[in-house]
């Protein structure tokens, strides 16, 4: 009786889920973004399934096609993991050095920029303009890469 090698299929699909759930889901929370725990757990399950599937495909009575296919599926899973780790730990650190950024204790450089209502705003203004009739305790500057 010929039965489908479900371990290979499930392992293959799960390795895709493990890789793509990072940019689409787990990147949202610091705890799963800074180190991809959740994705590594999914990958571990995927590789266990792929291993079982490979073992089954390499039994002597199995056809060469299933040996080739299951090897490709396992290799693709590994590639997927490598791509995720490369993105987070290698590409993530492709940032220029920032040696002249203001240090703790230094005065923050002044600037005038345009707000989301196309109005000019200065840092000095943000530091002094009352919020709910209270002078602000301070200002948090968040420089970010952009909305994308």
């Amino acid at each position: 009786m010929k039965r489908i090698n479900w371990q290979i299929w499930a392992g293959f699909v799960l390795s895709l889920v493990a890789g793509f759930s990072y940019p689409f889901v787990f990147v949202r929370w610091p705890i799963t973004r800074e180190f991809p725990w959740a994705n590594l757990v999914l990958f571990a399950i995927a590789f266990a399934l792929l291993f079982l599937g490979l073992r089954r495909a390499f039994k002597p009575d199995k056809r060469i096609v299933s040996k080739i296919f299951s090897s490709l599926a396992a290799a693709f899973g590994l590639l997927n993991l490598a791509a995720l780790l490369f993105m987070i730990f290698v590409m993530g650190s492709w940032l220029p050095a920032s040696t002249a950024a203001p240090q703790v204790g230094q005065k923050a450089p002044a600037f005038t920029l345009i707000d989301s209502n196309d109005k000019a705003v200065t840092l000095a203004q943000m530091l002094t303009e009352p919020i709910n009739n209270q002078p602000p305790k301070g200002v948090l500057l968040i420089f970010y890469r952009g909305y994308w």
Partner: protein
Amino acid sequence: MGISVDSPADTRLHMLQEAGYKFTFLSDPNLEAIRRYDLVHANEIESGKDIARPAEFLLDRSGTVRWRMVTENFFVLARPEQVLEAVKTLP
């Protein structure tokens, strides 16, 4: 407040409407402030343009930096609880 090279229109749409943030966003398309803070990421590979590298600075009311985070990996950013902890030290 957030500072990036995004235009006011992009910020309105993506940060205020879609993401629902309530704080101030400033646009720095010519990288004036970003350059002054030494945070230019020239020819960034994904966007293909000059943008800001991520960094956070907490200033007291005199404009002095009291706490900062200049990350070495853009998947690691200041966490809200770190900032709130730093805010407690403001005079």
